Every structure is written in structure tokens, then in C-alpha cells.
């Protein structure tokens, strides 16, 4: 009997959810009790895929939640559930939040898309916002950052800094968001150094410091001297520092973990967006919409550049960033070939958002194939 129990980690998660559920329910009771006395506060809930202490993706969303709590301290109560796995658990957690009187719920990972859509239909009065997805409804908005803009800047720097001409990329899952980042990086890197190749290792997780570190070691052993990552822990950066190669922080400034190795970091800044949307909810002007913010809206930012980067490279990076803000530079400007050499974006054209959102091919210069 216990064998099946231990093999099935999900059961543990369920138990965790049950405990959580009890907390939520008791929370509801207390709210009902004090609701009559004090003026009712609006409730904003968050669902995170990782722990808020991951120092990456979930951490930054939680920074956004705290910004809401600070700005509307007298009007809004925020709650969150962390480390919620995709699938049935996500459905349960989001449903619980919707049932327990939340007015606005942010589900902050791609895999929550279908559960969020389903639950949004069942709770038409609750407003939902799903990060990085593409399915919307009357009470379900989507939002994401144009992280590929940051990847473009990173690619330029990496292209100038590599000596081995091999970039290593620790990737999570083969979804368009991640593939777009890989492509954006290599296109930019090859624009300054056409000899560059990129090696990709998929770890099939957003968060496992040990495995991310192992993937980093594998890439370094195979000659990569700039490590890029699309997973959430600072472990790759730390390994890079240990092995004296370069790396780029992910989602938040990870400079503490590799002060020498971190060239820069792509920072997700959700604060302004979360505050605006909460404000709209409070004022009754909230509408379902799609937001895809980049450098221009401040949703994507670059961390301070490493002092070891030559001044002309920094200037080039800043120029590209300014160009993206001004609209004169687009990271996906043709001619761009896929791996087979076929032109996918003709010269002079840029990829539209539809192509970017559905990107499922590698461009020239990426080693290997996309796991199917």
C-alpha cells in the first residue's frame, strides 16, 4: 500500500492542498465574522508555480503582490498559494480562491491556462488574469512580458563575450515562450558573431536547483562559456561562477549568487501592471484584455551590467534597448532562416505577434532538435 503512496508524489500534494483548504475555509469563516464590523476589503489572490523563495519567476510575482498590498493597504487584502503543480491541483487551488471571495485572481504560469479558463466560466463575477497564456474570455485577461526583447540584448552581449563561440542554454519546457527566447538570443548573438552556436539542454522542470546545476555543468563540459537559462533558480549562475564562465540572471537580479559571472539579468517587473489592474478592479473599469509589455512599458528591465563588459559592448546593448523602445529595432527582423536553411522571415520583414506567440521552430545556429 505504502509503495503506491510514495511513488505518487501527487498524493502528498493533495494532502497539502487539503490542509490548505482547511486554512482557506477557516479564513472564510473569520472573514464572515468580521465582515459586518469593518468595511469589506477587496481580495486579490495569486497562484505561483514555484516557491516564493525561488529568487526567480515566482519571487518576482510575489514582489508584485507586495506592491499591491503596499499601495492599497486599506482597501485590498492579498493572498497567495505557492508551488502549485499543473493539472488537477491547479484546478482545485484556483477554484478555492474563487469560492473564498476573491475579486481578482492572478494565475502566474503557462500551465494554468486551461484550468483558469474553465474556472473563469464557472465564476463569472470573479476577475481572472493569466500570465503568459493566450486564452481569454469576458472575465479572463492575459498578460506577459516581451522577455525576448531582453534576450536580444543578452544575445548581443553574449556574442561579444564568448571565446569558445558556444553558448549554453538551460531550458525548461519546449513551449513557444522558451523557444522564442532561445531564438531571440541566437539571432542577436550571430548578428555580432556569425560563428556562434547554441547548445540547449532541457531539464523538464521550472525549478530543481540540483538538476539545473547539473545541466549547467554538462554545457560547460561541452565548451559553453556563456550560460543562459530559462529555469527559475539561481543554481546555473552559481555554477557558472564556480567554473569561471559567464552567465545571465533570470527573472530577477541574481548578482548575489555570481557577482563575477553575471553579465546582466533580465528582470520581470510586474509591479506597475499589478497595481494598475487592481486599481481598475476597485474602480470598476476592469476589462478583459491582452497585455504584452516589454522594455517600453517597463515590464522587462535589464539588471546593471557587469563591470567586466567593455564599454563599447555596453553601449551597443543600450543602443539596442533604446532602439526596441523607440520601435526601430525588432529582435526578429528578417532574413531569418530556420535550422534547415529555409527562410521563415523574409528580409526587411519582422515577425508579427502571432508568429512570436506560436513559435515552434529553432532558427539557424541552434544545435539539436526541439523535443516533441
Amino acid at each position, binding site marked *: 500500500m505504502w509503495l503506491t503512496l510514495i511513488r505518487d508524489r501527487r498524493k502528498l500534494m493533495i494532502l497539502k492542498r487539503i490542509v490548505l483548504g482547511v486554512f482557506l475555509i477557516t479564513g472564510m469563516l473569520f472573514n464572515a465574522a468580521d465582515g459586518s464590523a469593518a468595511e469589506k476589503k477587496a481580495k486579490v489572490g495569486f497562484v505561483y508555480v514555484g516557491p516564493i523563495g*525561488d529568487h526567480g519567476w515566482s519571487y518576482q510575482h510575489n514582489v508584485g503582490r507586495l506592491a499591491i498590498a503596499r499601495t492599497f493597504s486599506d482597501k485590498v487584502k492579498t493572498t497567495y498559494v505557492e508551488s502549485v503543480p499543473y493539472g488537477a491541483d491547479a484546478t482545485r487551488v484556483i477554484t478555492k480562491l474563487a469560492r473564498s471571495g476573491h475579486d481578482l485572481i492572478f494565475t502566474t504560469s503557462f500551465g494554468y491556462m486551461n484550468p483558469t479558463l474553465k474556472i473563469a466560466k464557472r465564476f463569472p463575477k470573479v476577475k481572472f488574469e493569466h500570465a503568459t497564456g493566450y486564452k481569454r474570455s469576458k472575465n479572463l485577461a492575459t498578460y506577459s512580458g516581451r522577455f525576448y526583447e531582453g534576450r536580444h540584448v543578452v544575445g548581443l552581449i553574449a556574442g561579444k563575450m564568448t571565446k569558445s563561440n558556444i553558448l549554453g542554454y538551460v531550458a525548461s519546457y519546449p513551449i513557444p515562450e522558451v523557444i522564442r527566447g532561445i531564438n531571440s538570443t541566437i539571432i542577436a548573438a550571430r548578428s555580432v558573431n556569425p560563428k556562434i552556436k547554441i547548445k540547449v539542454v532541457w531539464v*523538464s522542470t521550472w525549478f530543481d536547483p*540540483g538538476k539545473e546545476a547539473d545541466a549547467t555543468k554538462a554545457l560547460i563540459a561541452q565548451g559553453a562559456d556563456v550560460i543562459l537559462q530559462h529555469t527559475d533558480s539561481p*543554481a546555473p549562475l*552559481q555554477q557558472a561562477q564556480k567554473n569561471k564562465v559567464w552567465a545571465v540572471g533570470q527573472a530577477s537580479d541574481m548578482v548575489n549568487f555570481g557577482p563575477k559571472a553575471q553579465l546582466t539579468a533580465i528582470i520581470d517587473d510586474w509591479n506597475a501592471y499589478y497595481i494598475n489592474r487592481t486599481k481598475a478592479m476597485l474602480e470598476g473599469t476592469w476589462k478583459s484584455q491582452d497585455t504584452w509589455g516589454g522594455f517600453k512599458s517597463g515590464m522587462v528591465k535589464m539588471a546593471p551590467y557587469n563591470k567586466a563588459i567593455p564599454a563599447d559592448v555596453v553601449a551597443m546593448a543600450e543602443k539596442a534597448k533604446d532602439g526596441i523602445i523607440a520601435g526601430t529595432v525588432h529582435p526578429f527582423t528578417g532574413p531569418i532562416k530556420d535550422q534547415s536553411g529555409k527562410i521563415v522571415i523574409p528580409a526587411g520583414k519582422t515577425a508579427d505577434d502571432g508568429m512570436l506567440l506560436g513559435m515552434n521552430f529553432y532558427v539557424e545556429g541552434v544545435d*539539436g532538435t526541439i523535443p516533441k
Partner: protein
Amino acid sequence: MSELVVPVLLTIITASTPLVFAAAGEVVVEKSGVLNLGVEGMMIVGAVVAFAVGVKTESATLAILSGATGGMLTAFIFGFLTLRLLANQVATGLALTIFGLGLSALIGHGFVGKTFSGLPKIGIPLLEQIPVLGSLLFVHDILVFLSVIAVFLITYVLNKTRLGLIIRAVGENHHAAHSIGYSVVWVRMGCILFGGSMAGLGGAYLSLAYTPLWVEGMTAGRGWIALALVVFASWRAWRAFFGAYLFGGITIIQLHAQGFGVDIASQFLSMLPYLATIVVLVLISNNSSRMMLNAPADLGKSFHASD
């Protein structure tokens, strides 16, 4: 060739060591008839305590000792609940994991973003100078050596000593052991504490050597793999050791294969270690008499002298 193979093998050793600690410790616990599913919880408490002490004191020795102590104290809660209060072992073990994850997040709150210098490498004199093999086998941090020594000691004690005989007797038939005057509760408590300190060491290895940092949930399910390895090893420490290396080996080799552009779906490769575990499980349990011989007969049963 060797400059390519050695880093792979070194990474395998790092990836396997935390599993070796946790699984070998759990072998002892289960041999005494106790099923502690809280390995993940004890590991992560060990990880956070070791890291916190490491950052505060800058002493690797103190950090390692505190990691073991952290795991042991967590295990004590389990021992008290299941042996003294006769709580259900499965439920208590699961609760211990949830508790450990939460407690570690609380303790580690102030340590997110801090860094630790890592454990120093120790070379065994003379042996370390053997070409290739020397750097592969004889230059490691203290915990890697300790994990191997622990497996040898556990195998020896369980099979060749009076203490091992008592532990096994308690696990096979606690009433018989009780009737000839052994304190079932104290023998089991000792084993639980030992298992806890081993899990704590596994956690300490993660936060001190593997990835010298603290992030919540950094054990990422390794405690559960260790539990599966115990069954995989049919309750023998040295088999658990090989199981851990097999598991670590497949995990690491698939990462390297991807870097080389080997055209196999990475999802399949990620699945391989688990698949291998299941296949071996099926092979072992195929022969039910052999399975019965190895599994402690009183595994998971509560003991009360009046029963």
C-alpha cells in the same frame, strides 16, 4: 576522451551522494520495522540548518554537524509521535514532509540570496596522484567520502554485529524481540534518529556542496526518490548505493546527451531513471519469496507492549 568522461563521472558522484545518504539511512530505519516517509522533510531541514550555520559561522564542520542534527531533531518528532503516541507511521511521515518543507522555508527566510563558499576538496595522499582515477575517486569533499564509509558501516553493522541482529529482530518480529528483553521502542528510536541524521547529511550536501545556496524546496523530491531506492535495493544498503548511482548516472548522462544533440526526446530521457527504478522493482517483486525474505516483517506496524 578522459577530459570529457571525467567531468561527467564527477557530476554523477555529486548527483548521487544526497540520495546515498538518505536511502542508506532509511534502510536502517525500515530494517528496524519503521516506515518513515518523511525523508524529504528531514532532508530539507538538514539542508537549511546546515546552510544557515555555514553562512553564520563560515565553518564547514559545524555546518555539516548541524545539518545532521537538524535532520535528527526532525526525526525525533516522528519517533515521539509514532513510538510513544503510536500515531500511524504513514500519515505521520507524510505530515513530517509537509512540516519540514514549511519549517525550512521559515528558517531559511533570512538566508535566501546568501552564498556559502562550498566544501573544501580533500585528496587522499598518494592515491590522488593516480592518473585519471585519482582525481575521479580520491579527490572529493568530506561528505562524498563519508557517504561511502556510511554505506560500508551500515552493511557491516546490520549483517555482522550483535547490534545489527537486534535491529533486524525488532524489525522482523517486535513481540519476540520484546519478549526476550529488548526495548523495541528505544532500538527503533535510535534507528529513526540515525536515519534522520543521514537524511540531514543528504540535505546538507545539497545546500553546502551540490548547489551551495538556499532556495525553498531545493530538495525537489529527492527524499521520495531515496524512499523508492530503499525498496529498489530490497533493504540492503550497498544495493541502495548502486541504485543511487544508477539513478544519478542516467539523469546526468541524459543531460550530456542533449548537449551533444543526441536526437532522443528529452522528456523520455528525463523519465528514464524512474523507468529503470520501476523495471527493477518489477523484477525484484516478481519473485515474491525473495521479496518477503528481505522486507522486514513488522514494517510499518506500531508496537505496544500490551498487544
